[in-house]
């Protein structure tokens, strides 16, 4: 956020009532808060999408396959806060996501 400091909006420029344009959360990289990181295994994953449904931050990335069905494509580390819900919710028999210590 620091780089925007030089062009902060004035009272006259700001939308009234604290209105903020949609989708600004994308610019805020909450991934820096993470102390543990989920590691996704492409080989084990069956794309059941349980992790995608469970992720509170929408940080499970999806892509369409050749039949245009959405499949898991990994983790969005810019926004994943490392809560570990995906690891917990991933079916035990699959175990496609494991939490590891965040490296410096």
């Amino acid at each position, binding site marked *: 956020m620091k780089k925007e400091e030089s062009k902060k*909006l004035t*009272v006259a420029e*700001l939308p*009234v*009532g*604290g*209105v903020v344009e*949609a*989708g600004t959360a994308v610019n805020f990289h909450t991934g820096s808060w993470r102390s543990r990181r989920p590691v996704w295994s492409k080989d084990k994953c069956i794309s059941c999408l349980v992790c995608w449904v469970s992720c509170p931050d929408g940080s499970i990335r999806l892509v369409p396959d050749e039949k245009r069905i959405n499949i898991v494509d990994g983790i969005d580390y810019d926004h994943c806060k490392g809560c570990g819900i995906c690891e917990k919710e991933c079916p035990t028999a699959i175990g496609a996501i494991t939490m590891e210590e965040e490296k410096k």
Partner: protein
Amino acid sequence: MIKSMYSKGSLVAKTGNEIMAEALRQIEPDVVAAYPITPATEIVQIFSQFVADGVVKSEYVAVESEHSAMSATIAASAAGARAATSTSSQGLCLMWEMLYIASGLRLPIVMAEVNRAISAPININADHSDTMGARDTGWIQIYSEDSQEAYDNMIQATKIAEKAKLPTLVAMDGFITSHCMEVVEAYSDTDVKAFVGEYKPERYLLDVKNPYTLGSIDLQDYYFEHRYQLAQAMRDAKSIILDVAEEFKRTFWREYGFYEKYMLDDAEVAIVVIGSTAGNVKVVVKELREKGVKAGLLKIRVYRPFPKEQIAKDLAHVKAVAVIDRSDSCSGAFPPLYCDVVTSLYSAGILNPKILSYIYGIGGREFCGEQIIKVYETLGKVAFGLEKPSGEVEYINVRIK
């Protein structure tokens, strides 16, 4: 007697509550959310009957508390609806934190507020403690002397709120105005609807094609700017209020301003008051004028935004002024209206008028002719140097010793 040049009205005998519900029926907000039992008066109860009878198309939301009433009204307004509610006393207190959210999000909510005392001890009679407590919440506050004014103010408030993007409350005195039956001139539905017009918000949350975030966190780098916007909006609302009053006069032939001056222009002594008591004071002023006393009255209609420049100008020539408050701020100093009047004069560099502070009518305590005459007598003595102002707030008609 009611006099008017508006030809399409009808004279009706209604209580303040009934005529306020009538105003809401004519305005026909998209959503009314309220908790319609004591401490609130009958306003929303009557309105909910209109909804049940299919007289209005408004969505009526019966909620479980005033906190929820204000929350639901805020949500409806943010979604893009014209939203209104009504309450009193403890009910307004329970809305507290949500009042700030309504103004902070700049939602043009309209509220019919009946001024009633605050517990403890329990009392639901007239005084201004409830709305005076909310004077810094960023709501426009418009007070009414009688039912006609309450009705007229409610119709204007809808327009003022939407133009200023500020929530607006219209107040009238509990029981004295709210439950007392008076003759009121009601306007035609067509004219009221045409006056308030259709509500077209610039942005609203249900406009899914233009999404935005409302109510996000706003820290050191932007919060101050947003609060400045709110304070400035309140200052800018002054011209909007006068414009709407002008339009109202052209349509319904009744004149309104920030306040009413009653025999004030050449007055040597004057009382500044809010609400129904102005009626009693007018009677006394007239009697005193017949005896040759240059008495006058300034009745506040718009309390927030406070018309400081105009009041300073209109009181500058008065020798002695009594500001009589119907609430006590318990500040250890002076009550709210007194502080606003004195700071308005002082900041304008007007130091001549001697200004006395009185508190009257707390919890519905009577304030009648004799007591008003006594205030004018004191003002007369102070004006001509026979008595020095005490420098303290004086309480009228309370048994201290």
